[in-house]
């Protein structure tokens, strides 16, 4: 999943980006609302982590504008404002969750998983695909009852496919989830990571539809 992190504090922002990326999500980090608008104009995000007090405006106004144009991207507010009234205003403005700073990154991970699960309407965070079990919430994947270690980028590809289980995911979409890791990617990066996933989890897990994309079969 590709996450847009909108946070003006450098120390906190870099830690969140690093942690979320480590969880296998692609992260774009911006420090201002105008940068966030630009990012959202060019990219589709699976989730927004939104700070409320930003140098060029209130995060809540940004959220209201977002919802007003019927953009339903899940939003988790991360803020130092713990007032109940602000929290209620945030939730009423369309936030899916609210985290008061300081918070544990593990808590952020759990919230992130819960919100995206809710958004994707995936009731069960542990998905069984043949002999492979994928727990998106806890970032655990097992093949033939054995836990398998995946790199962040492998996770990003698998996450994107599992969240759209049974649906074709285009190569461009998978590339988007990889671009967020910052480094340049090769034109055949998607094929490389799909190949690695097949090696680790079995050849039948990911089905290729030539010229269109990839998918994991429905349960």
């Amino acid at each position: 999943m590709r996450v847009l992190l909108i946070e003006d504090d450098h120390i906190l922002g870099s830690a969140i980006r690093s942690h979320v990326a480590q969880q296998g999500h692609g992260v774009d980090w911006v420090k201002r609302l105008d940068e966030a608008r630009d990012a959202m104009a060019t990219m589709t995000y699976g989730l927004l982590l939104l700070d409320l007090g930003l140098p060029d405006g209130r995060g809540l106004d940004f959220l209201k504008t977002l919802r007003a144009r019927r953009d339903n991207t899940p939003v988790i507010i991360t803020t130092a404002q713990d007032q109940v009234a602000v929290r209620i205003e945030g939730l009423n403005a369309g936030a899916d969750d609210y985290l008061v700073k300081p918070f544990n990154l593990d808590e952020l991970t759990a919230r992130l998983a819960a919100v995206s699960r809710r958004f994707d309407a995936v009731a069960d965070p542990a998905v069984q695909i043949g002999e492979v079990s994928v727990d998106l919430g806890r970032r655990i994947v097992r093949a033939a009852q054995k836990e398998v270690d995946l790199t962040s980028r492998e996770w990003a590809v698998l996450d994107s496919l599992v969240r759209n289980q049974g649906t074709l995911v285009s190569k461009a979409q998978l590339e988007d989830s990889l671009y967020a890791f910052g480094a340049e990617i090769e034109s055949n990066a998607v094929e490389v990571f799909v190949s690695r996933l097949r090696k680790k989890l079995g050849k039948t897990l990911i089905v290729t539809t030539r010229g269109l994309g990839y998918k994991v079969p429905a349960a």
Partner: protein
Amino acid sequence: MITRGSIAIRLSLTLGLCAAVFWLGAVGISGYVIKHELGESFNQTMRQSALRLLPLAMHEFEDLIYEGEYEGEEARFISGLTEQGSNLDYFVTNRSGKILIFTGSDFPNQSNISIAPGFSTLNGAPAFALRDEKSGFGILVVERAGLREEFLRESLKAMLLPLAALFPILVALAYFVVRAAMNPVWKLGRVIAKRHGRNLEPLDIGPQPRELAPIAREVENLLERLKSALQAERAFAAESAHELRTPIAGALAQVQVLRNALDKNPNQIFAIQAEEALQNLSALSENLLQLSRLEAGFAVSPMAEDLCPIIDLVLGEHEFASNKGRIILNGGPQALKAHIVPDAFAIVLRNLLRNAFLYGDGDDKITIAYGVNWLSVSNDCAALDPALLEKLTQRFVRGNETIHGSGLGLSITSGIIEDCGGTLICASPIAGQHRGFEAKFKLP
């Protein structure tokens, strides 16, 4: 505050006493004037009496002398007049001073009397002597001793007696007048008394008497300044919380990233310890910020707030939501409503729940019960020492030294509840049980 006596009573008594003192002064001056005037009047009476009586006596005695009937006779005594209320006695004497005739209640103990003409005293009684140089006859008019003092006393008594009757009437009258005059003061006092932490609204009592208008105006200004100062202090405390939380959040997040990066590395323990220290710092700074907000008087709400949504909100926080299975919520049929701001109530509930989770035994249930204006949080644990129980709401007192709490949670909770006019009661064991701890508060 110690209440001193009523101003109305003191003022009316003072007015009454002042009137009495002035009256007494007036009586004193009058007495002095009366004494002087009485003296002159009585002297005039004696003098006029002597002037009228001496010619008559001379006429009488000249006839007797001429007819040869007088020589060697005893002095004539005219008695009984004094008994009829006469205040003047007189003696008629011849040239040698022999008493020829006299009035009075008794015979004089001397046959001769010699007094220089004019005013003088005889045996302490005022007297006036007059002599006819040609015939040698003289008259001495003597006023009854103490007559003038008696008149003066009577006059003074007549002037003083009304004061005795008038004094209580004067005091009562002054009291009612002062009371009526002080009605606006009392009204202003009542209106000011209604102002407190929850009510800093303008007095709004309409036009005031000239004497009270500056006070009412200044009180209104003071309330306005107080309101602004409290709002500024609250805003500052909230702002401080915001400014402090972000760097702590950054440090904590960086340490957690480091901890994850050092997975399976022996040095990970240092990152874990740093994280723990930061967590404690975060909790402590949070409590200190809550204390500063409490000092700023943020807890009291001017209106009764519905607190049930806040209970749901707090229970939805990750800290408690992840333990939702342990929490039993027993709500009454009516909503919990009280004059407490939602943030303060959220702090109270969080602190009580954290306390229950920290000191509760194992996985036992934690019960939240509430009614219209009360809430309690109880957990299972061994009964606490009564001496410790008494001190639990003091700052930096922990129920169990082996458990790492800040020792401020219950103190802050108690402060918030007291600010809102309620009381936090801690009980252990729970009533009707042998174990457990219950923190319960009731708000007005």
